[in-house]
């Protein structure tokens, strides 16, 4: 598997899947984003967060 495809799969495995409703609940040190998916919380580094496209609700 290519690095990119693996990264995309890993994001989905962690719950960040196309179509899912996410809420940014905080911005942490060094621009990392804290994202809520339902009751779960996930932290993403800044560069990874920038790769994700989201439509505002």
């Amino acid at each position, binding site marked *: *598997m290519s690095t990119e495809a693996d990264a995309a799969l890993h994001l989905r*495995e962690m719950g960040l899947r196309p179509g899912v409703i996410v809420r940014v609940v905080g911005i942490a040190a060094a621009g990392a984003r804290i994202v809520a*998916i*339902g009751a*779960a*919380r996930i932290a993403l*580094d800044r560069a990874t967060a920038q790769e994700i496209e989201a439509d505002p609700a």
Partner: protein
Amino acid sequence: MSAQHCHDGPAPAGGGVPAETPSMPRVMLVGNPNVGKSTLFNALTGARQHVVNAPGTTIAVAEGTWRCGTTDVSLVDLPGTYSLIARSPDEQVATNAVAGGDCGVHVAVLDATALSRSLYLLAQLALEDAPVVVAVTMTDLAKARGLGPDVGALGRVLGVPVVAVNGRSGAGLDALALAVSRSLTRPARVRGLPELAADDAALSTELERAQVLFDWVERVVDEVLPASDARPTFSDTLDRVLLSPWAGIPVFALVVWAVFQLTTVVATPLMDAMSGFVDGPVASVAGWLLEAVSGPAWLESFLLGGVLAGISAVVSFIPLMALMFAAISGLEASGYLARVAVVADKALRSIGLDGRAMLPLIVGFGCNVPALSATSVLPHARQRLLAGMLVPLTSCTARLAVYLVLAQTFFPHNAGTVVFGIYVASVVLVVAGGLLARTTVMRDLTPQSLVIALPDYQWPHLRTLGRSVWSRVVSFVRKAGSVILLAVVALWVLQAIPARGGHSVADVPVEDSVYGVVSQGVAPALAPMGLDDWRIAASLVTGVAAKEAVVGALAQAYAVDDTTDSGAVALREQVRATVAETSGGHPTAASLALMLFVLAYMPCLATLAEQRRLYGGRWTAGAAATSFAGAYLIATLVFQVGSRL
């Protein structure tokens, strides 16, 4: 809680985890990290558990006996994973174990607060055609957020037994036992999963195959979760401070400082008490017994001066080690270490790692050996290698024991500050080592993206914490303890053999023994750092075997027999006098140089052996040589500059 039964496990063999006891069915706990799997495991097995390495790895897997209804089963707590498409050695162990197919029932532990993530792993498990019982944890937390799953509906949708459990309170454990014992005779499999033929052309990539499972997960989630927006939680509020750009790092520094206080202020008196007990009452009784059987004089000297001194070194070190690991395990269980990974991510990125490498590096401050094993959480081999090479630069508690004596000797009024400074130096060395590696031998290393789950903050479960610390201590006494004991015994033998002066064996002044003569040969090399003394050289040579033995070696070289209070004072007086002389009147600079040298000159034998096993001899030797050269340069620089100030 279920009854507990004694079980001596078989030797590990084949597959992903140790072989099944023929008479006992095997049950495996499978789940994401931080879902309360270990707490559940502890609640189910009680004291009847032990830790074994998964075959061919250093990854520890807990195995125990669970009284499940009327039958005993062998329960295995697999490493947490988000996926059966393994990325790290930890995850590979879980994946291999599931694929091994020798398991009666898999207990899939689902986190109610992260149901969709948990269900994906369950879907992968189901694809393996594995018999499954589902245990749902954290239901109270999910309910508090207005997102509690309907456990009954989940059971109906999945077609397998589903039980809500709480490893802390014990709720649901009897129902889980019942469900598992029934499944052993009538195994149930998850239903409703789409077929995933391996040769389906439309599903050519892992991503496309996974998408089919995600679609199934979404359908399940829709049926069992209420459609409501999550409420902000206490953890969210806390994270606003603990992860914030302005407070995150100061709070982390404060936590480190608090842990450090614990290991100095609390551990030191405990360590003194332990060694005082071995050197005092135990030594007296042993001496009295030896006199009663009237053995030869050398035997008495060997047992009291060699073996007992070794036991004292091991025993006195236990409180320090236990406290450090209690602190680290407690921080991990509380959920804070996951935040540390976020806060430290950027700094670690600058040396080619990412936030996840923080865990092994923090464990390194307890003991380097388990820290090397902890690198198995990292998904990439190069990252594991770099982290493994940097771990010895984290100052372990054995080195702390040396700093404590030196700081109390040379900086009686600022000992705490000086020791803290050495820890800062340790962090600086880790960063410097990473930068050096990245610009030389690891130019190909690119930082990976950091995507980590933030578990809810919670109070660590004391019993689970206690078990984890206990298993660390037992493992230390077994592995490192035997190395230390051997080192101290070898030391005694070298000290007993005369090299000159016509003395007889076991009746020779230390400076005339093989040990003394070799040390006198090494000592001039320490002159540039103001430490040209054979006794200091001797203790440093001993420190290569184990840093725990450095202070004992120093005491032996000065022939300070008792390390009781007056003995410790006598040792400090003598060391102070020696260094004042060797440094030409600049003992402060020389003692700082000595502490920095001890920090980085050489990992202990146990660490070197583990590094060699994980990364091979060339990397191990290269890293050790680089570290030694760095330590020599820094110590020399500190003394040369410090003595001119």
